[in-house]
């Protein structure tokens, strides 16, 4: 297995490849927007994670999974999938250590509880987004590897 196996389903149409590559930054920006804007508009971590993963999947579809995995190694997605859950649970542990209930965001900033709620939600949604994006990319990778 020294030389890479041929990938028959890698797109070779130059228009498709260039167009898809051009779209990817916009998909990424939109994913980040949905992530951080989830408290004001529709969206949140779950949707943002799926959108971010779809950018990765589009890249893998037009450039091949091997190339996509060089850009985003599996070692990273494995760790970020776990990191997202750790961030979410970590917020709960921080509020515990501050003397409150688990995931009681008021404790993050007892002076301004509304602000604290906003921050708590932002943090846990970031965790959700990270995990969802990583797991979706992993699912695609493992199916494409078969």
């Amino acid at each position, binding site marked *: *297995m020294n030389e890479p196996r041929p990938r028959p*389903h890698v797109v070779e149409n130059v228009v498709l490849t260039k167009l898809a590559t051009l779209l990817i930054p916009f998909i990424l920006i939109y994913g980040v927007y*949905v992530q951080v804007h*989830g*408290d*004001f*508009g*529709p*969206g*949140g971590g*779950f*949707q943002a994670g*799926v*959108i971010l*993963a*779809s950018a990765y*999947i589009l890249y893998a579809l037009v450039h091949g999974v091997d190339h996509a995995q060089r850009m985003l190694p*599996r070692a990273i997605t*494995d760790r970020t*999938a*776990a990191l*997202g*859950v750790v961030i*979410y*649970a970590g917020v*709960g542990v921080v509020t515990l250590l501050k003397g409150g209930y*688990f*995931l009681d*965001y008021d404790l993050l900033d007892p002076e301004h*509880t*509304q*602000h604290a*709620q*906003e921050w*708590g*939600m932002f943090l*846990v*949604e970031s*965790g*959700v987004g990270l*995990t*969802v994006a*990583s*797991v*979706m990319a*992993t*699912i*695609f990778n*493992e*199916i*494409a*590897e*078969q």
Partner: protein
Amino acid sequence: MIGDALLVLIVITACAVVRVKNLFAATVLLGVYSLLMALTWTNMDAYDVAFTEAAVGAGISTILLVGALILTGNRTEGSREKERPGVNWFALLAVTLLGIALAYGVHDVPFGDPTAPTYTGVARYYTQEPIVDAHVPNMVTVTLASYRGYDTMFETAVIFTAGAGLILLLRREEGSDSALEGPPGLQAPPRRDA
């Protein structure tokens, strides 16, 4: 009006998904189904649900199903020998009766009634608590991330577990040739073109 038309289209699409023999066509029709569901949610002002349905149902699920089709081939087993299996009259009777019972039960569901128990209990508290204001105006996010924080945390854990299980089942370790090739029984069948 638009909602009714969408619901009719959804039923037609769902029947088509079941009836169609070509699995690729069925996958694309499932994507159409999800898109119609997303439109229905939008029509009901449930934008967060519509967003999720469009991204997950029409987007990622379709891609993953197409990926699975590339591995398994694109016709149902035995679709050539038995084009039309006979009608199972008992099953038809059972689902018809169940459908009638469900349609009857729907009459008692208070859709959109502000005095319904679902709107007079905790829902009022959720929508009128102080954190639903300029800070986090999206009620859905407040409910999911704050009031239902435990629930969402374990949802995230479930997604992580799904990913971990997939890695354990499917990932082939680099550097070991035997694992790379896999046992004969686990290899993907050769692709059959329809």
